């Protein structure tokens, strides 16, 4: 997949700091998002960490929602339930809402499909847009980010993982893909 010209392409060997990419997202969102109306929803786990920052920096009026896509995943039959699933918390009315979905790394698009199915279980939103920190390509579904920190081209067999330490510092790491199954991102 070729990078859309609107968002920069970065080298996996020289990834910007996660917070730099968050800043880049904030710069895009500040001009387009209405802080009084925007209903932000982070996808567990990494998407929630990003969303917490975006929500604070943009000063959004509605409380932050969180989604665990575990019950809508399309690979339950082969991979089973994940342990320690979290409950989705949507603390606003979804019907008619202007939703900004937030995830860390966009890959196959399957997580986003599951998250949208989950959201529709609460009601019919007016609009859903997607903000992602990184897009690593490799889509299995017709999903695109509306707002993006950067594109990154990864070799097969590698993955990008967002981690958070005890001091709430976000760290992006490129590493060999763990486990045999396709990542759901």
């Amino acid at each position: 997949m070729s990078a859309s010209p609107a968002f920069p392409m970065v080298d996996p060997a020289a990834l910007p700091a996660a917070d730099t990419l968050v800043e880049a997202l904030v710069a895009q969102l500040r001009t387009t998002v209405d802080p009084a109306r925007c209903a932000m929803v982070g996808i567990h786990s990494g998407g929630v960490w990003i969303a917490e920052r975006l929500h604070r920096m943009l000063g959004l009026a509605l409380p932050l929602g969180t989604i665990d896509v575990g019950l809508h995943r399309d690979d339950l039959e082969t991979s089973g339930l994940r342990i320690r699933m979290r409950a989705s918390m949507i603390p606003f009315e979804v019907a008619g809402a202007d939703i900004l979905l937030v995830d860390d790394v966009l890959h196959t698009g399957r997580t986003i499909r599951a998250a949208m199915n989950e959201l529709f279980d609460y009601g019919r939103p007016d609009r859903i847009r997607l903000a992602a920190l990184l897009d690593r390509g490799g889509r299995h579904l017709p999903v695109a980010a509306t707002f993006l920190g950067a594109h990154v081209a990864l070799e097969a067999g590698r993955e990008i993982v967002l981690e958070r330490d005890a001091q709430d510092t976000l760290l992006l790491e490129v590493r060999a893909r763990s486990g045999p199954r396709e990542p759901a991102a």
Partner: protein
Amino acid sequence: MVRNPQLDAHGALRHLLSIEGLPRDVLVNILDTARPFVSVTEREVKKVPVLRGKSVFNLFFENSTRTRTTFEIAAKRLSADVINLNINASSASKGESLLDTISNLSAMDADMFVVRHSQSGAPFLIASNVREGISVVNAGDGRHQHPTQALLDMYTIRHYKQSFTDLTVAIVGDVLHSRVARSQIHALSILGVPEIRVVGPKTLVPDAFARMGVRVFKRMEEALRGVDVVSMLRLQNERMDGGLLPSAQEYYKSYGLTAERLALAKPDAIVLHPGPMNRGVEIESSVADGSQSVILPQVTFGIAVRMAVMSILGVG
């Protein structure tokens, strides 16, 4: 050591037949998994696609509208197809054996059997004869076990008390004949409750229960003093007919949970009852409807807990 027939070679849950012998991790995982399902029941669309395309057969060899209904709701909210069979009224009365019934239903591509039977051990027998890939959930067998009831009780206790390791729990009533009590005692012990008390008339709470690691009380007032959780059991009318109790009125006088007796427990103690309850026999109406009663939340959590059990069995 004989392997627990409920667990597969990797220690994952394959059937839910009894709380006894289940590792703590398995219990905690069921309770943790139930939490997101509670949130599913609060949505506009109370349905998730976890068991889409699977068939759950409710096999009730003994009548129970309530338990069958909660399993049915749970399976439907997981998008499974649910087939209810009231066996009393069908094949068993025509002389078909239990295992022949099961073979026939398996040939209809069942994925899960939810079994209620008056004979202790019937779900075990079924589980040991179904083919690989079919799971069995015990929905109550004889006087033996009622594991999903105990799990929903544990979920309720954890919801209100957060942890188990500093609790005193009193189980009140016909402990001897109660599969609910037996499953509760196992679950509370596995989850680390330091003091489990049982109380009731000697004919229904024999001293031998001490061997299960519980404290046996004869007087309700002593048993309730300082407890965090009061778990009431239903008094079955058959007990009076069998001469184990003089009358319902006598029973209420000594073992009914009245507001006065409940005041002996901790001020924030909660009251559980598996239903259906007999007001004025085992519990005073004002207690059943009072601020310490969590009887209706138990019903709501029960659906989420059964969804968790069926999901874990259905997709691993």
